[in-house]
């Protein structure tokens, strides 16, 4: 057994989880509160530390120290299991997403498996079990309604989620996410093919179905992560908080963390599939204009800086998408339940299906 592989993998898991994802989750909560406040002409939380930057620490301490109350009528086993099930899938999904090129020769992806996106869909759809179990085990009306809503919503939008990415794999020919990124480095990002053979007209024709795919996938991710305008499982006005009504203390916080972690991994998947992953082309004029590729393959400290630059680029793109998530949340009103179902089944499903045919026709006549 190769112990160095195990050690490096463990190092990557600990690094990505405790250094990047969990702090990012807590600061996304802070950003959500601050950005929403700014959009609504309020200052937002600005007391704890400079500009309120220590607010997440105060929140975490508060949630940890609160009384963990378990109501008597609940089904205790599932009641305790549900928060963990809501949190875990969101984090495990991150394993296949390439978040950087290489650092000191080590590929910056935890598990480079050849089923890539199928793994993402398989694991991320498990997240619904946490919500359904929480709703059912709470033995209370409103959480139950929230859980039921959540399951039907997830099933409806899973269809368009899966169908909208098929054009990508028609183009790339592989499900491995590192291959998707490699293709985008060579042939340009999926929705903006500027680098590589960008003079090929087929590339620009393909950008249209890609934009539609991007839009449908984005909307489906909004629905999958229960974000507004699709937050019916936790519609406060109707359900008094939804599936997490009966939870308190750290168990409640786990649902919260799970939702935000799902947002981050969802954004990471969007970035990998459509926005070029960790790739950022920089213009270069050495012997005529061309796009320079920066990655971790160079020798010595240049390689280290390149590898770090790729990681920073990736998470900068993810952060931009997270801002977009928050921005949308504080702009759009919530859909009514029948409108949500109608939109999922009668519009996005058909659009995604048609999109596959359009992309296939373009690939047939303009091979790229």
């Amino acid at each position, binding site marked *: 057994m190769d112990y160095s592989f195990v050690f490096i993998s463990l190092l990557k898991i600990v690094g990505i989880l405790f250094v990047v994802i969990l702090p990012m989750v807590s600061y996304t909560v802070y950003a959500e509160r601050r950005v929403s406040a*700014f*959009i*609504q002409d*309020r200052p937002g939380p600005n007391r704890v530390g400079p500009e309120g930057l220590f607010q997440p620490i105060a929140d975490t301490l508060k949630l940890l120290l609160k009384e963990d109350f378990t109501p008597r009528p609940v089904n205790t086993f599932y009641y305790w299991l549900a928060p963990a099930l809501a949190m875990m899938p969101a984090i495990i999904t991150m394993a296949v997403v390439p978040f950087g090129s290489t650092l000191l020769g080590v590929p910056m992806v935890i598990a480079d498996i050849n089923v890539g996106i199928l793994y993402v869909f398989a694991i991320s759809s498990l997240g619904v079990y946490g919500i359904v179990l929480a709703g059912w085990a709470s033995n209370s009306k409103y959480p139950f309604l929230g859980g039921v809503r959540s399951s039907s919503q997830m099933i409806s939008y899973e269809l368009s989620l899966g169908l909208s990415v098929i054009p990508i794999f028609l183009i790339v020919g592989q499900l491995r996410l590192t291959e998707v990124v490699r293709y985008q480095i060579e042939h340009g990002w999926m929705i903006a093919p500027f680098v590589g053979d960008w003079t090929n007209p087929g590339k620009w024709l393909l950008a249209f179905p890609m934009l539609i795919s991007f839009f449908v996938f984005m909307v489906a991710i909004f629905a999958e992560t229960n974000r507004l305008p699709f937050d019916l499982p936790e519609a406060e006005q109707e359900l008094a908080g939804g599936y997490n009504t009966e939870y308190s203390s750290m168990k409640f916080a786990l649902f919260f963390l799970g939702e935000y972690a799902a947002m981050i991994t969802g954004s990471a998947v969007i970035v990998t599939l459509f926005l070029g992953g960790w790739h950022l082309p920089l213009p270069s004029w050495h012997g005529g204009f061309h796009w320079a590729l920066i990655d971790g393959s160079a020798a010595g400290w240049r390689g280290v800086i390149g590898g770090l630059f790729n990681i920073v680029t990736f998470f900068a793109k993810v952060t931009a998408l997270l801002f977009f998530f928050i*921005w949308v949340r504080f*702009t*759009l009103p919530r859909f009514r339940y029948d409108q949500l179902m109608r939109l999922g089944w009668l519009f996005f499903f058909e659009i995604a299906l048609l999109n596959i045919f359009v992309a296939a026709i373009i690939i047939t006549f303009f091979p790229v």
Partner: protein
Amino acid sequence: MALRVARPALSWSERLYLPAIVGGMAITIKHFKNMLLGRTKVTVQYPEERLDNDLPDYYRGAPALVRDADDRLSALRIHLPASRDQNCPR
């Protein structure tokens, strides 16, 4: 008999809702930007900022603790000093 209100006939672009969504997002980002650049004056940041010294001329009230004969706290009242303006209708 219930009154039936005719639904407004929406044009094709209105039924698509996308222009309205984009318009709404433009409005919210404008508010975000103005707040970020400090153009929106929102409220008084109380412990740091106090309006005690530049209250408007028409301001009459002053919160005061009222004590009874035994020096016990009886109520928090808005004390209206008549000396500032004798026309004050008390």
